[in-house]
């Protein structure tokens, strides 16, 4: 059995779903961020797999490259906001921030 596109896609889908689940269940804000990283990894895996098995250009790889950069940027901003949040509320529990509601 040769490894084809679908294998990678299913793996990516699994990562995607894990990431989404992490985002919805982790109360630690950093945990939510980790979920986001998982989803982004799924997208990158998809892109590279398509690039490799179907398209045959390096476009997919380049896109994945940019997404890695974006993930880093996003993490930087998110961590800075977490630090700020932690400073204000003295916790990293995302559920504690529920003053804004209704």
């Amino acid at each position: 059995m040769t490894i084809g596109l679908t294998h990678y896609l299913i793996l990516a889908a699994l990562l995607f779903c894990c990431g989404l689940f992490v985002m919805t269940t982790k109360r630690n804000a950093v945990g939510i961020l980790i979920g986001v990283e998982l989803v982004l990894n799924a997208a990158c895996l998809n892109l590279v797999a398509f690039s490799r098995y179907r398209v045959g250009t390096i476009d997919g790889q380049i896109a994945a490259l940019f997404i890695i950069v974006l993930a880093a940027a996003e993490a930087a901003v998110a961590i800075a906001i977490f630090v700020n949040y932690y400073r204000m509320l003295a916790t990293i529990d995302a559920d504690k921030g529920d003053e804004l509601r209704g």
Partner: protein
Amino acid sequence: MNVPTPNTWLPSADELHLFSPEFVLVGTIVAVLVVPLLVGRRPEVPALIAVLGCFVGLVATWAVSAQVADGPQAGMVPPSAGATPMLLADRFSVFYQLLLFLALGLITWLWLIGVQKRNGTDSTAERGGPEFFVLLLTSALGMMLMVSSLNLLVLIIAIETASLPSYALVASDKRSRLGAEAALKYVMFGATASAIMIYGVSLLYGRFGTLDLSVIASALDARYAELRSTVATFAPVTHVGVTDAVFWLGLAALGVGIIFKIAAVPMHYWCPDVFQGAPTEVTTWLSVASKAAGVGLLLRIVSLFTVTGPWPPPNLPPAVAGHTYAMTVAVLVGILAAVTCTVGNLAALRQENVKRILAYSSIAHAGYMMMAAAIIAAPSAASGVSAPTYNAGMAAVIAYLFVYLLMNVGAFGATALVVWQTGTDHLSAFTGLGRRAPWVALPLAVCLFSLVGLPPLGGFTAKWYLLLALGKSAATQPWLWVLVVVAVINTAISLYYYVRIIRQMYLRDDAALPAFRPPGGGVALVSACAIILLLLGTLWFSPLGRRAQALASDVYARPPAAHAELSHPM
């Protein structure tokens, strides 16, 4: 010295000129960073530079508008064989540049007033003048590129460029507990949405083998043509568009990112919380610019499906035409639009916080604007409608956005003045405002009535053009009537909560609350908005419509597949 390899490429002067507004913005960012190092961190310095940048940017935009007068120009076409343009410049994107520069200028104004009014001088460093403007300008850059990108990768990066600085902006008042909470929610929700969107883009890449929107558009065309021939020979083919599950999945996931920017249902949850928690000038920026860019992007994406030629297609049985890509997208967008504006208006009814009311109102307005995106079929003479040369939906959105900018800047600006004075944004802070600060209350009332859409104000003009566009298209696509009815019902609902604020200002009073003198600059800002709204509803009623039509002419916003004039001889 290395000899440049053939693939290394610098865009031509023409191309660079085409995107000079963006370059002006980048230049302003650098200036905002560098100049304070030279002259000191006074808050006026970065603001002044930003305003200056806006002016230069407007001039550049004007120059570009002359360049795109003949039609859309594709830009940044790489020299390699088969390469496709990355960016597009047309009147629609020029309009967005104009809008964003205008919004930038107004927000800068508001920020300056806020700095002076809110905390006194000792904390100006706290407000992070240069940092604030770097973030603001960068997000503006992202928003401009969102509307003019022709490539999904550029699109993603543009959206992130618009979003990431916005997250930071929400937390820019570092001593605000609510601001910190709002920023956390915003960044988390935004990261989720963009992650889903990126996953969707990866699927679209797999489906079409390209990230280029023009190629995707022509692939859709090809599929459409294939479909027509199939129908001619093997009728009936059912669910032609719907069988393409991967495509729809990718599109839906991409849509998640877009409607997150618009704050439409079901990705609207962040909006009220963030709008309430963010500093008011940032809220204004998000409600105006971020939303506007999202709507523009939606129109661009949706217009990929624009069916050129008569509608419904003559050789397609109506039952099948109902299942084409275009029809499905239109109906989905229409449903989202209807739900969005209904949810926004209903949820606003019971709010007690003015910023939150306005947040929900902005959700509702996003819904109205999305309705225009449901007008998808190109108007044509064959269907019996007199053929305008412009895209009615786009023209309506252009008019709407312009008015919306003024209404929201006015309403949020006045709210900001009250908030800075009283320290609270609860509805009770507005009690007796008609007596305490008549020059804030009156423009605010005008803006609110305009948000309702009462004549003779700009809001009415905007809704009028929107409903007119919907009604005209409904002549050939009767389902659009539903949207018209929903919009009208929603207007009636929305009246209630806007009038609540007005009632609080004029019909409630409490002698214990002192009158106050709002800062002159702030009064000037909100009054200017109110006066222009009044003019837009009266004297400038048809000029606005004409201008919007002109800006939406020549486009079905379908990116040109390739561009001969600008390709390089290299």
